[in-house]
């Protein structure tokens, strides 16, 4: 792998450069930080009258002193500076509001390989239960306290209550697979159990992976390979629910099927099956779809090697935020106020938008925030074999008054 060779080569650069770079760098205190904070508070003043339901954990609320400077645009900073003297009185009031509802840094932290795109002949179905007619008014922004947000493994400490929960979940699933006599392995950041055929592991953020070392085949009447139609995949999903529903703890399990995408050489991948719980409201359903779901990893040959069960925390909530409409988000997209991992060519224009969905971007390290994800056909990426590439462009879904953002 060429990039790996490059990574290893960087490992062998001159030692003096490495030691030089390893020296502690003192943080630059830039003069505009306080203005940035103040500008943020001024922006918030506009929204005071509209503050409604606030579900907030007080210790996570950012006061003006610790608003991050990074995302403020230059002209916003200048706007803050010009108004400083005129708004001393308003500042105190606005600080109180900021403590209740923080301005959020929506600058995206992307993780993953390459750019985020789907290769297909036509824009595939995505499986997201959200619908533009759902009329979602507010959505929570949720803190990510997964272990992956911690950079030094020596600092990982899972609270006892959570660890007990992990143990009990592991043993419950182990019992389902007839492994009740096997003792789980209790590691600092995860619990696991194995009988040599099935491995179960639960991480501190309540994500479970069940690894079938002997891949699971399905009864002949089900079509599980990459040539399965959506209907056939749906039937398979119903079978899987029947087989494993005891593990899901869902009141009303729903099937979401994402069409399989294509590889560079036009090999179609399997449709993806996700099971989630239908909530009483559209918001609840959307949250279930992103935070508590089951996903099956089925090979193109139709055998299952993994099952992931997600029970991610939805607390603490950093705030409930008003959501903009698709129409407003589309205007922002047209104005270039989007984020994307694709930088090879310019945004091709609204006429190339092929789909939009309301999503939580499930970063390993960043808090969970709602975005509109536009899938845009990029003509520059069209391949000789007629495969199109649909690239993800993200527009923050919360009211812009609460955003602090730098677009990548």
């Amino acid at each position, binding site marked *: *792998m*060429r*990039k*790996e*060779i*490059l*990574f*290893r*080569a*960087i*490992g*062998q*650069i*001159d*030692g*003096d*450069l*490495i*030691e*030089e*770079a*390893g*020296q*502690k*760098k003192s*943080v*630059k*205190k*830039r003069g505009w930080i306080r203005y940035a904070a103040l500008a943020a508070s001024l922006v918030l003043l506009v929204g005071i009258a509209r503050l409604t339901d606030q579900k907030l954990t007080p210790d996570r609320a950012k006061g003006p002193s610790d608003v*991050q*400077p*990074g*995302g403020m645009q230059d002209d916003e900073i200048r706007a803050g500076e010009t108004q400083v003297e005129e708004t001393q009185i308003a500042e105190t009031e606005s600080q109180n509001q900021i403590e209740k509802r923080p301005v959020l840094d929506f*600058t995206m*932290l*992307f*993780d*993953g*390989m*390459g750019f985020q795109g789907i290769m297909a002949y036509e824009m595939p179905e995505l499986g997201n239960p959200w619908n533009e007619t759902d009329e979602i008014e507010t959505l929570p922004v949720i803190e990510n306290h997964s272990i*992956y947000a911690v*950079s*030094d*493994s*020596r600092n*990982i400490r899972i609270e006892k209550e959570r660890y007990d929960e992990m143990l009990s979940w592991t043993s419950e699933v182990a019992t389902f697979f007839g492994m009740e006599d096997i003792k789980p392995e209790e*590691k*600092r*950041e995860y619990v696991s159990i194995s009988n040599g055929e099935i491995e179960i592991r639960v991480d501190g953020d309540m994500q479970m992976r069940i690894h079938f070392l002997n891949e699971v085949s399905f009864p002949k009447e089900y079509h599980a390979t990459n040539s399965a139609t959506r209907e056939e995949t749906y039937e398979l999903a119903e079978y899987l629910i029947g087989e494993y529903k005891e593990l899901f703890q869902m009141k009303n399990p729903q099937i979401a099927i994402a069409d399989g995408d294509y590889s560079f050489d036009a090999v179609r991948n399997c449709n993806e099956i996700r099971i989630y719980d239908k909530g009483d409201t559209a918001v609840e359903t959307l949250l279930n779809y992103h935070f508590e779901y089951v996903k099956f*990893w089925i090979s193109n040959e139709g055998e299952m*090697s*993994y099952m992931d069960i997600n029970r991610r925390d939805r607390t603490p909530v950093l705030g409930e935020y008003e959501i903009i409409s698709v129409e407003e988000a589309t205007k922002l997209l047209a104005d270039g106020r989007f984020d994307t991992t694709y*930088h090879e060519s310019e945004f091709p224009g609204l006429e190339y938008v092929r789909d939009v969905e309301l999503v939580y971007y499930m970063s*390993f*390290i960043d808090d969970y925030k709602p975005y509109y994800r536009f899938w845009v056909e990029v003509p520059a990426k069209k391949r000789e074999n007629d495969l199109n590439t649909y690239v993800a462009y993200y527009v923050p879904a919360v009211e812009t008054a609460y955003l602090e953002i*730098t*677009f*990548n």
Partner: protein
Amino acid sequence: MKDEEIIGLYWDRNQKAIPATDAKYGKLLNQIAYRILYNSQDAEECVNDTYLNTWNCIPPQKPTYFQAFLGAITRNLSIDRYKEQHAKKRIPSELTLLLSELEEVLPAQSDVHREIEEKEIAAHISTFLRNLDLEKRMIFIRRYWYCEEIKQIAEEFGYSESKIKTSLFRIRAKLKAYLEKEGVWI
């Protein structure tokens, strides 16, 4: 304890060498391994293997830059382990991100290309880095040698994450152009 003293312990075959190395560099090495592997047990094992390799290498070696010497071993051991774990499925790790960023640096292939050794590529990269200003050089090495997260680099340098990302993007583009100019094919 100074590096020369620790290296002296290895030369004397004194078993205190390893705890002394761990006391001074254990945390750093653990961080590097963890960012690549995202698993504390694997990270600790790689760090322990680093000490074992170091014990086997010194003597006869006498590294001038001990931290770089240790870190390079940890990185390579961690990458090997990462590859083993990736044989089937992708696991989340800072390395996944780092590799995808470095993809941009890969020089275009040409008919007159020649494959060269990692060490030769490293020498080219060192030369390139010496021609950058100090801050850019540090940011690049923090990201791709120490495997630090962008957030962490941004905090330490007092910049926004976006600025660090932009800066890295530009350095990567320059490095790519430089390697192509030098006829390096990877």
